[in-house]
């Protein structure tokens, strides 16, 4: 059923797209018709695939780094009080700086290759992962902790055996958000300065008014984003299968 819904939504969006062109008569270098974009997708397939692979690599490496750093930060803050008192305010304050504003600086520091994009993706993923996981670690059911104390658990064991597993659903929520925003980091990095990647390809195509190619790159970005999210959601659901979910719409 979910597949059918997905196809219906995509077809519906394409129909709206075509209808907008038909109704407004907008020139095709502003909004190309779906068929032109499909042709661009087919004609430039190998070029698009090459650049997609670059962007996907940036996103995946950024995801791994951001998730690892975020989870490690949350664990450090949970395990060690001074870490929480010193790191938490810095993390929260750091969110006042727009990641986009950092992009030019990162390019300046790290060059035009993969690294500034990976750094952008890492930065954008880090916060949701760290804050969700830390929240989860703080909200352990007090009864579990009482029980563990009466059983003679040491603090470290309690963290590892009770708090961490209990916080995994919260970590999973953070990772879902991270996966959803990761492409933003990579693409913004590519816009600021890159020699490859879908973001770079879009800028290049824009300069030459190859609007269908821009849209083709955009569609691939959306496909990458959705595919990543679905894959992550599938994996995370399996990882915390014990966590029972309820649907608010069925209350």
């Amino acid at each position, binding site marked *: 059923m979910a597949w059918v819904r997905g196809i219906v939504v995509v077809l519906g969006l394409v129909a709206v797209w075509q209808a907008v062109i038909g109704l407004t008569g907008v020139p095709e270098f502003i909004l190309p018709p779906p068929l032109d974009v499909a042709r661009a997708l087919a004609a430039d397939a190998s070029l698009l695939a090459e650049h997609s692979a670059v962007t996907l690599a940036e996103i995946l490496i950024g995801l791994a780094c951001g998730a690892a750093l975020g989870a490690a930060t949350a664990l450090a803050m949970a395990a060690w009080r001074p870490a929480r008192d010193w790191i938490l305010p810095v993390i929260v304050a750091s969110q006042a700086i727009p990641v986009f504003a950092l992009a030019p600086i990162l390019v300046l520091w790290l060059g035009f290759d993969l690294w500034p994009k990976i750094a952008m993706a890492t930065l954008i993923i880090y916060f949701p992962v760290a804050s969700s996981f830390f929240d989860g670690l703080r909200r352990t059911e007090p009864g579990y902790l009482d029980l563990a104390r009466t059983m003679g658990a040491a603090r470290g064991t309690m963290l590892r055996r009770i708090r961490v597993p*209990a916080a995994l659903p919260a970590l999973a929520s953070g990772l879902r958000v991270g996966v959803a925003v990761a492409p933003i980091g990579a693409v913004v990095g590519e816009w600021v300065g890159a020699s490859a990647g879908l973001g770079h390809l879009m800028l290049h195509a824009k300069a030459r008014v190859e609007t269908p190619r821009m849209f083709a790159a955009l569609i691939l970005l959306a496909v990458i984003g959705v595919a990543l999210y679905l894959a992550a959601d599938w994996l995370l659901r399996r990882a915390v299968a014990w966590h029972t979910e309820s649907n608010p719409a069925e209350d």
Partner: protein
Amino acid sequence: MRVSPGATAPSIAAFSVTVHAAGLDFGGAPLFEALDLKLEAGSWTCLLGPSGVGKTSLLRLIAGLIEPWPGSTIACSDGGPIAGRIAYMAQQDLLLPWLSALDNVLLGARLRRETIDGAIRERARWLLARVGLAEKLAALPASLSGGQRQRVALARTLFEARPLVLMDEPFSALDAITRHQLQALGAELLHGATVLHVTHDPWEALRLADRLYVMSGAPARLGDLVVPPGAPPRDVAAAGLAARHAELLTLLAAGLREAA
């Protein structure tokens, strides 16, 4: 140390616990002060009283989960510490949802970083069989009924094999039939351990108690009551039990009025 499957709580010598001059604040007001309580070695002590009177706090105090006022003392008759010698069972089953029934029973051993060998696993399996869950070893808590979950919690409490068992309304979230079954099972399997059982259910107390205290007032005091004759678990249909139940209800209601 190899533990035979048959060994439950009584395998360790029971000791009595004396709480003396205990005082505790709750929300700025003294919940109780200068409170004395003795848990006799190897006997089942029920603590009855209305909600909010401080039963749970007293139990948590003995469990070492909250700090009493300075001057309060809790002593074991054998001179040993309380810590490390208690098993705790709460109203919520507190089963970890990511662990199977078997792993939940083994939780204490895991948390103490003991080596879990075949004999220990065998004992956990045996205990789960004793509470009627031999078929549910691998089941996650979410797939068990409330009664089954509390059975796992009982098996976990028994697995700890501690001489002092602290139970905070362990059966009160269950339906009447399941509660009745689990009371009998608990009385049988915990026979010989020193038990403190907090409850608000007079029937339960009359059924299970060797010693019976009613906690009432603010700050709370303990009233020592005569328990019905016969060994627990007593038949609720036994002569005189209904009359005692009515008496207890009157007493508890008086305690409630006093608190109000």
